């Protein structure tokens, strides 16, 4: 591990002031410190933001405001989250292990890096790690990489479970930085790889996430389901956060669907949602919606299974949510 400076920021403004090129913010460190050990991340300085006064989960109008430094385990256990946004609590609990969740912060979870095996191995090329060096995953081990929205430069997936639920819930990410404060709406925090796979998100250097705001909970029943080969402590092959509201007349009044494990971003299934709204809730409509979404998929030779998997998962989850 390369030598680095370490500073603990007193407040968000202090954190931003301490930021300089080559520095990184440090949350719980469960991802960043791993990457530093592997030589994937080599920050010259760490600005520790895990103890900033950015804690707390508080009502915010009809919604909720979650501090960026709230630990994953605290978030999942919070009564307001469990009562009003169970899909978020479930998604967080589906991720990692108890020990990791005790350390991991909300901001760090959103900004965790891909689990593409080449990205994590500095002895091999990777466009995301070293722009222009190539993407060996496309011709190699991509069994758990993207089927949607990928590019010829990168086929990585975003590994977060929590982010999938936040994308479904229209969460808004509050940011402060050298250029002032701004807000990015989920799923717009993350970006597709395009020609610049080294950029995971739309954040500019030095920008600090301060909070995540949730609007009022969407009406209807919700569920988070994660598919993986072992029962716990594994990243998703495919996951889904879904909210379904069926009116008294049996038609879909509203719905939200987001998928994990399929793209460089938590993938909001807008096509499926559009196909569903106003249609009669039932297997036919659910299959049509799932197929509308997955029609765009471009699987690679070793991850083609994700297309029927995502399709089946959408249909099954909606069937379970339908009254």
């Amino acid at each position, binding site marked *: 591990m390369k030598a680095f400076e370490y500073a603990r920021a007193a407040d968000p403004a202090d954190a931003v002031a301490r930021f300089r090129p080559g520095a990184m913010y440090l949350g719980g460190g469960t991802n960043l410190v791993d990457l530093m050990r592997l030589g994937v991340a080599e920050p010259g300085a760490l600005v520790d933001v895990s103890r900033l006064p950015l804690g707390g989960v508080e009502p915010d109008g009809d919604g909720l405001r979650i501090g960026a430094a709230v630990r994953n385990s605290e978030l999942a256990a919070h009564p307001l989250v469990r009562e009003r946004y169970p899909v978020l609590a479930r998604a967080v609990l589906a991720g990692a292990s108890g020990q990791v969740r005790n350390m991991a912060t909300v901001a760090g979870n959103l900004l965790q890096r891909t689990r593409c095996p080449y990205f994590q191995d500095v002895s091999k090329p990777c466009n995301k790690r070293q722009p222009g060096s190539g993407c060996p995953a496309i011709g190699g081990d991509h069994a758990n990489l993207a089927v949607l929205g990928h590019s010829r430069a990168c086929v990585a997936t975003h590994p977060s479970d929590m982010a999938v639920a936040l994308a479904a819930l229209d969460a808004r990410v509050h940011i402060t930085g050298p250029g002032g404060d701004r807000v990015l709406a989920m799923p717009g925090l993350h970006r597709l790889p395009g020609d610049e796979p080294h950029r995971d998100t739309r954040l500019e250097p030095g920008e600090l996430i301060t909070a995540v705001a949730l609007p009022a909970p969407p009406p209807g029943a919700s569920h988070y389901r994660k598919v993986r080969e072992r029962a716990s402590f594994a990243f998703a*092959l495919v996951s889904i956060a879904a909210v379904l509201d069926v009116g008294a007349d049996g038609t879909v009044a509203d719905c939200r669907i987001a998928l994990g494990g399929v793209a460089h971003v938590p993938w909001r299934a807008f096509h499926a949602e559009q196909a569903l709204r106003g249609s009669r809730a039932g297997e036919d409509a659910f299959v049509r919606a799932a197929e509308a979404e997955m029609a765009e998929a471009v699987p690679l030779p070793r991850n083609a*299974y994700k297309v029927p998997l995502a399709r*089946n998962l959408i249909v099954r989850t909606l069937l379970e949510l339908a009254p």
Partner: protein
Amino acid sequence: MNRVEGHDKVTGRATYAAEYPVEGVAYCYPVQAEIARGRIAGVDASAALAMPGVLAVLSCEEPPELGADAEPELALFQRREVAYRGQIVAAVVADSYDDARAAARAVRVAYEPEAHDVMLRADHRGLYKPDKVNPDFPTDTEKGDVAAGLAGAQVTIDVTYTTPTMHNNPMEPHATLALWNGDGDLTLYDSSQGVSLGRDMIAQALGLPRERVRVVSRHVGGGFGSKGSPRPNSVLAALAARAAGRPVKVALTRQQMFDVTGYRTPTIQRIRVGADAAGRIAALEHEVAEQSSTLVEFAEQTATATRVMYAAPALRTAHRLVRLDTATPSIMRAPGGCPGMFALESAMDELAVAVGVDPVELRVRNDPDTEPDSGLPFSSRNLVACLREGAERFGWRDRDPAPGVRRRGRWLVGTGVASSTYPARRRPSQASAAVENGGFVVRIAAADIGTGSRTALTRIAADTLHVDPGLVRVELGDSDLPYAPVAGGSMGTASWGTAVTMACQDLLRDGKQGFADTTEAVNADAELARHAFGAQFAEVRVDADTGEVRVSRMLGVFAAGRIVDATLARSQFVGGMIMGIGMALMEQSVVDLEFGGFTNHDLAQYHLPVNADIEHVEAVWFDEADGELNPMGTKGIGEIGIVGTAAAVANAVYHATGRRVRDLPITPAKLL
């Protein structure tokens, strides 16, 4: 019996190899090859040597002096040729681990790469017939006319199964602490399954007389075969300590373990069976393709269990090996039998389906009177009893054989069965026993790799001496103690226990001390087929939409001689079965075809079962009385638990879904 060292372990007082506190210790971090085949053009250590704390850099630029006949994987820095990606090509010694690691990244190695080949294929042009398979079995066997048997059969099965590369992944990473004294004597604190063999091989690698080397390994956090013989870390620590003139620690990372500590070879196995309409086997053939490195011929004995299992008038087994640009495969729990029985026991299930005979009954029908290949009588064989007892306990009787018809909510449910077997052998060993301070001390260079062998030997000694186990202390894990074979091949307790029993008998005669060398007794063993047997039953559920497989319950029934200690035995059987569930459903090292080595090399990507995967795993056993084994009447229990598990799970998956997965692991991708 509770483990005699249990208290030390749970209170953190048990010291493992990397933990011994030593004054002035330095640390060594390896530099690994970034090509899979080629030559090292040059190693530029100048930048690394200028970094803080760096004491020395080792590489082929100045090959350290080694013995002439060092095992090739241990012959560090002797050659410029690279045999596999991840091979240790240089190393940095520094004051701290972090300094060593940082400087290792600054060592510049220039390569002349050559095209590599890391993929095992059934039609590989390099496949050849090795002279023998491990440890000394014939490569091929043939009895009767297989072609005629297949041609004349009413039902035939011709199927190919594959198992992937798997890594042992013991909890404690390989680690070594090396100290040279002023006289040129070397002491290694090592994580080892066998200190006598370890000492011999390290002495040979370093070109030292074995009296100058001592290997100490008091506690070992698992090995599963990967610590059966020394790995490069042991020799590296010795060389680094010599170069730095200080004690040196080498503690491999999990990632490094995937490269340099061995793995289970991938296999491609073709099985052909011909049977009559009642399922009686007329001909059976088992052909295996597997791999080794260009450095060492390691030929896994994959088809040897097929020589033992079922009565077949015509029986042929064959092994072919190809030397690839990979690290050398090694021993992993139940070598041979574990991958081989996945294929054979899956094929038996396919035969049961084809002839419409219950798979338990099919196995009973084909149970042989003598060992099928050799014709030797069995010292004892209770496979049929295991199958029947298991069927009774598992509730097999009402099983509807139709696949894909049982549903519980979103789950498809099925059950499967498979047989298990593992050889029951013993090797020569020595041991001593003495009366000391009002108690008894037994000394033997055995290993306790977490299996509880220290406890089992305590009990064996106490039984022989007719005293309370609390009066017996067993010292092991030190090559200065009486010579003992490795913890492996399910031979540990049988080999060491024989020596301990005889040493204690000698002590009873002498009154003060006793010593035994069992070489003669072992060599005088009558020629018999000695094997443990078992039957495994699995119930799985498969998510109809996602292909997720969960094992709802497993039962193993074993006939493995006399069981010395129920607590220890249960943990071996159940542990083996859990490891087998991992093999069935998730374990797989993904070969990196483009770069060599593997793409996954940590426990986040190489999946082992976690607690949530293990719902109900139960092991029961018969207490077999077999007088042809050893004084304790034991058969060895460390490996049989993993044999057959994967087939039982795969057969249950077939029963649940109607889908036969012949390529492990059985992941959702293969069931969608």
